């Protein structure tokens, strides 16, 4: 079949798939669209008036947007956690769901790009970052590195996923010689993107809270312990609402690996706390601002303690095999670790790094309503992109959506689709 015609059929078929869904699905999608509209309106207001609609000032010049960006780069990097055992150790149960991890990475990188776009003072000038057309200050500027590696990682994941899914759609076996090297390369690429983002902070001597070698390992540990949590939840949803077979072993193994990453995350946090508290230099003031407050200023203190408690609780739940395997405690742990790492990396990195500022001034930054609205819009874009991609990818992976065949009807909640099992075409599953 002509590839172009096939691709057109694929697009049309995908559109039909995303427009067909249960009541739950549509509630979710419409909810996201509403938030996207709210976010867009808030962003337009910010474009017209300027970044004064945020609470960022000279003293705290990066805030909620960049905090979210940092967290989401971690989520994108965490997709690699699924790739490592799948392809390096050839572990069957995880391999089948690696694609979902890469779809999450794509959605996360899209959100990262959007957060940078809304944060810069001149979004109309982002083309200045394109090499040769603009002027990219590579290799001196870490942000220049970030632009290259994040876009590269996006392209890499997009190519892998599109190739695998389109092959499955065409009922052709994908060429191992093409995609295996790409997938193996995505492991150091994932570590690379988060290391570069960590170095962006790490290399700034003016901010002693960030200027610590531990930042890159901390970023990686917190990424690996939180990113897959979303996938665990997703896999349970897919298992329940579609024909997708995901073994408990796969889920439990991922949870076990996350537990080790959580330990490292807590250990590194503890190391940071020890160093600042025991050395008791002036730099302790940033850690004090986080956990105790300074001079009556303590806007983020409650959030930081919530983060610590959630992270420890999640670690305990994931460590003990009984709670790790029980669906209620497993999902509770997932929610807790997401809260814990989101608060630690979003709020607990950017704000204390900039407070007090370089001249000792404390400005109590807390995101404004406009910032929350824009951020909600961007998160919704990411969730929507992810939802739509998963909605199309799942039937492809299950062999229900291939060239010349489309899913007959939507799956009602709770219904297990056995009818199509007999008619699934062999050789389309990877």
């Amino acid at each position, binding site marked *: 079949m002509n590839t172009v015609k096939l691709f057109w059929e694929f697009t049309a078929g995908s559109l039909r798939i995303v427009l067909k869904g249960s009541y739950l699905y549509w509630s979710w999608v419409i909810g996201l669209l509403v938030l996207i509209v709210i976010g867009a309106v808030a962003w337009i207001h910010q474009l017209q008036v300027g970044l*004064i*609609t*945020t*609470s960022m*000032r*000279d*003293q705290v010049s990066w805030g909620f947007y960049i905090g979210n960006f940092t967290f989401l780069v971690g989520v994108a990097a965490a997709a690699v956690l699924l790739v490592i055992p799948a392809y390096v150790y050839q572990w069957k149960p995880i391999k089948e769901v690696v694609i979902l991890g890469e779809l999450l990475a794509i959605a996360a990188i899209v959100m990262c790009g959007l957060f940078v776009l809304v944060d810069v003072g001149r979004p109309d000038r982002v083309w200045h970052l394109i090499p040769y057309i603009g002027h990219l200050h590579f290799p001196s500027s870490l942000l220049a590195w970030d632009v290259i590696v994040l876009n590269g990682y996006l392209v890499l994941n997009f190519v892998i996923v599109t190739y695998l899914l389109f092959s499955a759609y065409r009922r052709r076996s994908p060429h191992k010689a093409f995609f295996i090297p790409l997938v193996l390369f995505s492991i150091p690429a994932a570590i690379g993107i988060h290391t570069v983002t960590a170095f962006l902070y790490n290399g700034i001597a003016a901010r002693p809270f960030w200027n610590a070698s531990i930042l890159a390992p901390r970023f990686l540990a917190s990424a690996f312990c939180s990113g897959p949590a979303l996938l665990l939840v997703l896999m349970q949803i897919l298992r329940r609402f579609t024909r997708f077979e995901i073994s408990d072993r796969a889920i439990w193994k991922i949870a076990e690996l996350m537990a080790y990453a959580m330990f490292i995350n807590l250990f590194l946090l503890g190391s940071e706390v020890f160093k600042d508290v025991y050395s008791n230099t002036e730099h302790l003031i940033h850690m004090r601002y986080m956990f105790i407050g300074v001079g009556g200023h303590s806007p983020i203190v409650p959030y930081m303690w919530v983060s610590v408690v959630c992270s420890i609780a999640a670690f305990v739940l994931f460590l003990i095999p009984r709670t790790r395997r029980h669906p209620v405690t497993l999902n509770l742990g997932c929610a807790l670790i997401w809260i814990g790492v989101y608060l630690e990396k979003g709020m607990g990195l950017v704000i204390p790094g900039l407070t007090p500022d370089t001249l000792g001034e404390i*400005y*109590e*930054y*807390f995101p*404004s*309503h*406009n910032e929350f609205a824009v951020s909600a819009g961007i998160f919704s874009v990411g969730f929507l992109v992810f939802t739509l991609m998963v909605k199309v990818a799942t039937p492809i992976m299950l062999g229900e959506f291939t060239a010349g065949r489309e899913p007959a009807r939507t799956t009602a909640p709770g219904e297990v689709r056995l009818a199509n099992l007999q008619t699934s075409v062999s050789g389309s599953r990877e």
Partner: protein
Amino acid sequence: MTSSRKTSRSWSLQFATLATGILLAACAEQSRPSWLDPDGTPPPPVADDTQKIEVPPPPFSDDIFPCTDCHDPDLPVNTKRRKLKLAHQDIVLHHDEQHRWCLDCHSVSNRDKLHLANGTLVDFTESYRLCGQCHGDKYRDWRAGVHGRRSGYWNGHKTYLLCVNCHNSHSPAFKPLEPKPMPKPPEPTK
């Protein structure tokens, strides 16, 4: 096969050496400030006004000069240290007043001039020479342009001020000034 492996190994060694060298050079301590090792370009010529110091006229109060308008040069002078009663009561001496009084600076022999410690008479237009006797380091810095205000051109003509243009010679310490408004503290957007 063996020779190409050997060649590739020697290439690797060369590259490693070069990379190490570059790394070391990059990390090498910068020992001297850049302006002490100039690129050979001479600095632009600066007007030399170190000999003659052009200063504005002394800031006399109204009708106070010349002193001989009131002080008859033929009359004897009472050189006893005392609190003045007939005139100049508005002058509060706050300048080493434990050891000095008016006639330690103002000349007795010529009421229109000041005098140095060795008796040399000094015009009011050169009063800095008198200040410089005790305040030698300030005087040296003032001549170099480092003490006190100057305006003009950093690579050209600069104007000096007399010490007394800023410092009241009888009470030289600066009075506190009213500061300009403080900056607006940042207010978060709600």
